[in-house]
């Protein structure tokens, strides 16, 4: 039988152990609920880490779960901003579930998800909701300044555009709506269902993965472009558009429509010129000049092809060609005509997207194509073969509106500002056909063009946010002063205080 002291010790020990276990359980419970229900405050002056009222409106309207899968390497520059931003979405809405997949460490999982989402790059963010999804490429998440590279510095992120991209994707998923694209028919255009080399079946498959809904549309006899159309594509017409058709397309653009015109130089029967589709004069109204020529570029030849099959490089930093320009991917155009800057209407701007080399030209002697040679009347290179046009004010409504008066923008925000028209014209349709689509930059050009044209996230008007960065510019003497202050001054004061205290105690 235990002695009374031992029994008392056992009792006290048992009580203590139970107490510790209960408090440990309480610790776990507090942390569980703390983890589950939390709030993130943004203490920055510019509210860099606060979701705009528009994004909050989108999250309020989100009634179904969205799995957000981040395929990114944790060391990448955009990883942290993306992760942090998605944390904010997850903190605001229980419907947003974020998962990070490191393509290097989670090979099997990454491969499974690549198969599931059919993504071609491992630097993407996928928004998945049931059978609907949106894929956002890393290149669409930030703007970079490369000017410091001449001094040996790396590219500098000047603007992070994650919020506009993510909120746009969530808005589309919440609305359960896919961008609707109509391909005109009735003028000898390329067909979506055609599986031959000259068909667009592969383009249809590619764009299907991007969640576009595509349909052929016989425009003849239609007074208007159907309501709810996000984009009209005219792909390789070989016959003339009637005036009422062009008028309907004009009204569609005026109402904020978007049009992609892929137009080949089709030789007219009997030779001597190109088929007049009626689009040349119509496009001139929007500042786009369609050349009656065939573009050749002997300095960019493709082996085994004639001089009229050319490859062209992206020009400038327009969103349509930015990715091509950064990756230095050319686009192969089997037979192209020039598309250059005309006289844009008031308030519009026109940007060249693709150009030949300086040695290229626009051959206008179409009756003698067997032995082309650059003549004085030909269009001198570099020749533009693709153009984007739209109102100059078509950029997202200023960033400031998010921050200056968030209350004024309020919850109704996602419905948004007037939609600006957009028009892209490429002097070739063949690059998108089954025979050519797989070549180098061709699929990127097609997908990026359509993504830019229907880009709903832009319509939200959430501007990019500049990361907090300070570029110090201390002179040598200033840096020396700072060095003395922080390495000698402050520690010296501590030593002095210690000596003073020591002497005081000795007295």
């Amino acid at each position: 039988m235990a002695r009374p002291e031992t029994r008392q010790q056992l009792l006290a020990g048992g009580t203590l152990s139970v107490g510790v276990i209960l408090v440990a359980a309480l610790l776990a419970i507090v942390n569980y609920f703390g983890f589950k229900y939390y709030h993130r405050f943004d203490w920055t002056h510019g509210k860099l880490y606060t979701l705009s009222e528009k994004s909050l409106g989108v999250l309020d309207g989100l009634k179904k779960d969205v799995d957000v899968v981040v395929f990114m390497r944790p060391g990448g520059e955009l990883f942290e901003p993306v992760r942090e931003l998605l944390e904010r979405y997850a903190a605001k809405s229980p419907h947003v579930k974020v998962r990070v997949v490191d393509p290097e460490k989670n090979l099997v999982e990454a491969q499974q998800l690549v198969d599931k989402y059919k993504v071609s790059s491992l630097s993407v963010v996928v928004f998945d909701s049931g059978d609907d999804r949106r894929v956002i490429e890393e290149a669409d998440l930030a703007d970079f300044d490369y000017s410091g590279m001449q001094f040996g510095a790396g590219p500098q992120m000047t603007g992070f555009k994650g919020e506009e991209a993510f909120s746009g994707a969530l808005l589309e998923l919440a609305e359960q709506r896919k961008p609707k694209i109509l391909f005109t028919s009735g003028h000898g255009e390329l067909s979506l269902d055609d599986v031959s080399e000259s068909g667009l079946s592969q383009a249809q498959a590619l764009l299907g993965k991007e969640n576009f809904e595509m349909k052929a549309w016989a425009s003849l006899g239609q007074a208007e472009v159907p309501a709810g159309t996000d984009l009209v594509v005219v792909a390789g017409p070989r016959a003339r558009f009637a005036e009422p058709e062009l008028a309907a397309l004009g009204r569609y653009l005026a109402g904020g429509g978007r049009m992609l015109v892929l137009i080949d130089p089709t030789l007219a029967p009997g030779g001597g010129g190109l088929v007049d589709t009626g689009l040349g004069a119509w496009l001139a109204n929007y500042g786009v000049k369609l050349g009656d020529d065939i573009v050749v570029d002997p300095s960019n030849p493709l082996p085994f092809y004639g001089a009229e099959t050319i490859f062209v490089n992206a020009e400038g930093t327009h969103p349509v060609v930015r990715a091509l320009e950064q990756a230095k991917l050319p686009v192969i155009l089997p037979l192209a005509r020039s598309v250059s800057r005309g006289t844009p209407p008031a308030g519009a701007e026109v940007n060249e997207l693709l150009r030949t080399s300086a040695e290229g030209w626009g051959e206008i002697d179409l009756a003698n194509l067997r032995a082309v040679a650059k003549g004085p009347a030909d269009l001198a290179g570099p020749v533009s073969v693709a153009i984007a046009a739209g109102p100059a004010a078509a950029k997202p409504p200023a960033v400031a509106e998010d921050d200056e008066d968030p209350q004024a923008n309020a919850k109704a925000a996602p419905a948004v500002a007037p939609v600006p028209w957009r028009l892209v014209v490429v002097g070739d349709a063949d690059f998108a056909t089954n025979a050519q689509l797989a070549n180098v930059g061709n699929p990127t050009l097609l997908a990026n063009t359509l993504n830019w044209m229907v880009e709903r996230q832009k319509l939200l008007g959430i501007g990019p946010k500049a990361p907090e960065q300070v570029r110090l510019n201390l002179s040598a003497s200033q840096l020396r002063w700072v060095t003395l202050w922080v390495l000698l001054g402050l520690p010296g004061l501590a030593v002095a205080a210690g000596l003073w205290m020591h002497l005081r105690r000795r007295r």
Partner: protein
Amino acid sequence: MKGLLATFFRELRAYFFSPLAYVVLTFFLLVNGYVFWFILSYLNDPRSRAGAPLELFFGQTIFFWLVLLFVTPILTMRLIGEERKTGTIEMLMTAPVTETQVVLGKYFAALGYYLFLWLPTLGYVAVVAHYGSVDPGPVAAGYLGVAGIGALFLAAGLFASSLAKNQIVAAIVAFAMLVFFFTFGLLENLVAGETARKVFGYLNLWQHMDELSRGIVDTRRLVYYLSVTAFFLFLTSRALEAKKWR
């Protein structure tokens, strides 16, 4: 409350009268001064990427963590262990104060001295403000993180001190515990499973400071620091109580 205040002032006085406190302060300012100078020199180089100096200062370098891992055990190692070694613990335990008051009094004194150590670093903020610009929000959040993580580390150190009679042993035990706390969360970057990653991410102190230094204050971090601090203080008071009936 009276007992708590008496213990608090007694311990705080002991800190400021101790030569070790000034050695720690000098070491602390030398290392942090070096880190700050290094950051400024780096950002002043035109080839480097632009960045916010104080954001980098708060938790973005390993030196920040080394200072915390070394300094906090030194601040707590003698708090209870010394009392036990010199036998004054018996007097304290028989005095009209509870174990909780003793523990809290000693803990807040250590916390007070720890925060005093950080006070001169406001000089770094003044330097950046003089030559550039300072957003006060992220700086305040950075100091909040310093206080939160320091509070947690000091509570763990105090507990270690209650376990060991020898100060050096207490410091080593505390150091080992803090290294565990610090590195445990870093496993977030090594594990593959989603749940494991979330759990380790919750405990990832580096990640916490990264966010706080940028001005993001997440209630999860505060819940974690406060609850674990309270748990260690509870354990310390129970450890003291256990000495009574052993």
